[in-house]
């Protein structure tokens, strides 16, 4: 399935958002959004991805 992860087109096996994070090797405390809409971490395993979805993974930053 083709998706766009942080602006980069990618071919992935994962069906859910949680599986995508695992497949992409993203761990830790990040915020996620699918098609510009925020998906809280508790809902990631239930959130199924579709062809062409745009996924944004946002890490908190502390710099100022």
């Amino acid at each position: 399935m083709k998706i766009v992860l942080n602006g980069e087109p990618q071919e992935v096996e994962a069906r859910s958002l949680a599986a995508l994070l695992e497949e992409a090797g993203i761990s830790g405390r990040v915020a996620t959004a699918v098609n510009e809409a925020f998906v809280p971490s508790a809902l990631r395993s239930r959130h199924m991805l579709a062809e062409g979805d745009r996924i944004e993974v946002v890490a908190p930053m502390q710099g100022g």
Partner: protein
Amino acid sequence: MGLVLAVAAALWGAGWALGVPPKSRLTVLAGLFLLVLALQLVLPAGHPLRTATGGSPAPWLLLAGFAVLALLYGRWVAGLRARADASGPKPDAPTGSFSEVELDRYARHIVLRELGGPGQKRLKQARVLVIGAGGLGAPALQYLAAAGVGTIGVIDDDVVENANLQRQVIHDDADIGMPKVFSAQRAMEAQNPHVAVRPYHRRLTPEIAADLFADYDFVLDGSDNFATRYLANRVAVAQGKPLISGALTQWEGQVSVFDPAHSGPCYQCIFPEAPDEALAPACSVAGVAGPLPGVVGAMMAMEAVKVITGAGTALRGALLIYDGLYGETRRIGLKRRADCPVCGNNDKG
């Protein structure tokens, strides 16, 4: 003729020395002129008195003609000046509390349909607290002051260091070693003497945060550590005040307006826990591109202007991501988390 003119000048000078008003002195001179003119007309030619005062009425009449012309010209210029003054800005116009200098200074705001005079007045009445006078604080503070935000508080416990100056444009080389809040205060007051700056040279701690936030309408968070970010969020939510949050690392920055009392989530809805230090390093470790805080800090100031005046749509319920390395901005919608320990009990959202 020279004798008469010398007498006229002496009369004018004596009148000035005695404090006689110019109008009375002019009347005396007019009397002298009429007397001399009468001598020229009445006395026969060759009479010693007539010879001593000119010998003929012609030069005197010529002189009178020039005087009348000068008088008329003066009146005309004064009339033009009065008309020009009437069309210019008047002090204490409808806005009341703005001086003429301030009206001129904020003219580019006042012509904006979304701001206008009322918007500028709201800016002047606003009280805004900025956490951090560093990379994000520098441009945010400068633009808030320039825009005429009436009361600006700034809290930071750091002093200006040489390595700050690659990006923290509010401080100068000569400020190295000085507390950042005082350096920032001086820069802001030099740029706009019509705003009040309150510097707090200390760290934002849980002990003082509530009392400090209570003095302000809302808060800009440009701090450099997660502990301060979570603290600022907790206190802002507790007091129902908007938190304009900016953060950055290396080439990328984030901006959002967290205002669950109005709509949208709080900071902790989106980032429930701080990541490990290794995954979100501080600027001193990871580096930061000099202009990046300028971009993100100016965006924070822009959001502040909108939150104060109600113009447009502030970034409530939205996170703007600016990726400087590729010149991209991405915007994602944010939602409140019902189980958020900070704002979870809030009804709105």
